[in-house]
C-alpha cells in the first residue's frame, strides 16, 4: 500500500476543531502530494488552516477525515524514526538551557541506534553561524538568532522532512530577508545521502514563498482549500537580485491576485 513516490501525501484532509460547544472547520478536502526533496510553500490568509495542515503532516494532530502519510506511513512512524524536524513561529527554546543544550535537546529523547550519520554539535552551530554563542542563553540572543537555534535543533537528527510554520514571522524585515537566504544555503548544503530535504514551509509572505520554493500552494480562507498550485521555475541558487527580475515579479503578481480575489 505504501506509495513512496511521494514523501508527504495529504489526501482529502478535512479537519474540524470541536470543543463540545462550537466546531470550526479549519481545512476542507485538502489534497497535496510532495515528492522527496521538494521545497513547497503553503501560503494563504490568516486562519486558513496553514498551521493545521503542517501539524497534520507532522502527526501532531489527527485529521477528522482523510489521510496524512509520510513515506507512505502514518506520520507517527516518521516521528519515531526522528525523520521530522519542526520549526515554529515562536522559536520555543528552553530558556534555562544554553544554545548548545537547546540544540542537543532532541538527541536526549532518543534511544534508538542511529543508522544514519548525525551532524555533530559543532557542525550544527557552524551551519547556523552561532559557534561563538554556544554557551549563551536564549534571552541573550536576538529574535533572529533564536530562530537559527530553533533551526539547528530541528536539524539535529538530520531529518528528511522539515516542517516550518512561519518560522520568520516574528523577526524584523531585514533579518527576515537574510534568514531566508541562509535557510536556502543550509538546505542546499545540508542534503545528505538522500538528496535535499523535503520542506513544507508555511508563510504569508509572497516574496518569501517565491524566493524559497519549487512550488507554492495557495490556500483559500476558512475553511482552507487548495486554490492554486504553482510551480516556481526560477533557477537555483536563488539570489536577491532575482527578486527584481520579471519572472519573479510575475509570480508575485499572480500570487497576490489569487490571495486578493480570495479576500473579496
Amino acid at each position, binding site marked *: 500500500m505504501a506509495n513512496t513516490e511521494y514523501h508527504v501525501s495529504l489526501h482529502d484532509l478535512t479537519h474540524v476543531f470541536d470543543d463540545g460547544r462550537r466546531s470550526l472547520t479549519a481545512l476542507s478536502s485538502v489534497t497535496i502530494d510532495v515528492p522527496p526533496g521538494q521545497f513547497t510553500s503553503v501560503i494563504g490568509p490568516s486562519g486558513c488552516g496553514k498551521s493545521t495542515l503542517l*501539524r497534520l503532516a*507532522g*502527526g*501532531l494532530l489527527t485529521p477528522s477525515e482523510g489521510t496524512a502519510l509520510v513515506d507512505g506511513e502514518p506520520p*507517527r512512524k516518521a*516521528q*519515531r524514526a*526522528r525523520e*521530522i*524536524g*519542526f520549526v*515554529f*513561529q*515562536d*522559536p*520555543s*527554546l*528552553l*530558556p*534555562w538551557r544554553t544554545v548548545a543544550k537547546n540544540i542537543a*535537546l*532532541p538527541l*536526549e*529523547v*532518543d534511544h534508538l541506534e542511529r543508522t544514519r550519520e548525525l551532524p555533530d554539535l559543532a557542525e550544527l552551530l557552524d551551519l547556523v553561524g552561532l559557534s561563538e554563542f554556544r554557551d549563551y*542563553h*536564549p*534571552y541573550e540572543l536576538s529574535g533572529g538568532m533564536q530562530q537559527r537555534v530553533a533551526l539547528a*535543533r*530541528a536539524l539535529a*537528527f538530520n531529518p528528511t522532512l522539515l*516542517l516550518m510554520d512561519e518560522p520568520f514571522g516574528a523577526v524584523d524585515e531585514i533579518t527576515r530577508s537574510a534568514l531566508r537566504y541562509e535557510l536556502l544555503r543550509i538546505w542546499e548544503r545540508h542534503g545528505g545521502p538522500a538528496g535535499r530535504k523535503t520542506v513544507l514551509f508555511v508563510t504569508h509572505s509572497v516574496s518569501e514563498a517565491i524566493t524559497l520554493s519549487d512550488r507554492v500552494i495557495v490556500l483559500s480562507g476558512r475553511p482552507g482549500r487548495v486554490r492554486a498550485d504553482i510551480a516556481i521555475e526560477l533557477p537555483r541558487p536563488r539570489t536577491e537580485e532575482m527578486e527584481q527580475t520579471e519572472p519573479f515579479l510575475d509570480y508575485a503578481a499572480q500570487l497576490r491576485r489569487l490571495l486578493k480575489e480570495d479576500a473579496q
Partner: protein
Amino acid sequence: MSIQEFTQRSLRSILAYVAPPAVLLIGIVAFWEFYVDWRDISIIVVPPPSAVVERFFENPDFFWKEGGYTLYEATLGLMFGSSVAIALAVLMAHSKLAERTFLPLAIVIKVTPLVAIAPVLVIIFGFGTTPKIIVAALLSFFPTLINAMTGFRDVNEGAHSFLRSVHASPWQVFWKLRVPSAMPYLFAALKVTYPLALIGAVVAEWFTGDRGLGLVIFSANANLDTPTLFVAIGVLAITGVTINIVLSVIERRVLFWHESVRSTTT
C-alpha cells in the same frame, strides 16, 4: 573593574536597599522607647524595646531553642504538605478528571479555619510533634497545589509540540519541560507557604504546646510576661525574614533565566 571597585559597588547597592527600611525601623523603635517612657506606660501593657532586648539576652539560648523547635515543625509540615500538593498537581495537570475530583476537596481544606482543626488534631494525635506538622502541612498545601498545577501546565506550546514531534515520551516531556517550567511557580508558592507553615506550627503549639515559640507566647500571655511575649514575636519575625532572604538567594541562582529574576538584576 577591580575587585575593590566591585566590592565598593556591591556594598553601595546593598546599602541602597538596606538603609531606608533600617532607618525607618530604628526610628520606630526609638519613638516606641521614648513614648513608653514619656507616658509612663506599664511594662505589662507595652514594654519598652530596651526591656525586650534585655529579656532576650538574659537567656538567648532558650529562645533560639524554642524557635528551633517551631522552625523544625514548620519545615517538616511544609515538606509534607508540599510533597502531597505537588504529587496531586502532577495528576491534575495531566487529567481533567483528577482535577475535578481533587480540587473541590482542596478548596474545602483551604476555607476551613485552622484554629478549628487544631483541637481536633490534639484529640486524634495527642500532644506530640504530629499535630503541629499536620497543621503546617495543611496551611502550605493549597498555595502549592494551585501554583504547581498552573506551572506544570504553563509550558511553551511550541517546545511541547517540538518534543512530541521527535517522539518524546510523556515522562521526558515532564522532566525536560514541565518541571523547569513550574519552578518559578514553585518558588513563588514557597515564599508564601514557608511563613504560613510557621504560623501553622505556632497556632498548633498554642493548643497542643509542649514546646516551641507558640507555647512561649501562650504561657507568657497567661503570666502577663509581656517582654517575653515580644521576644518570641521578634524571634519569629527574624526567622521569617531569614527564610525569605535565603529563598530569594536560591531563587536567583535557580531561576537565572526567568524574567522575574532578570528584571531585578539588570
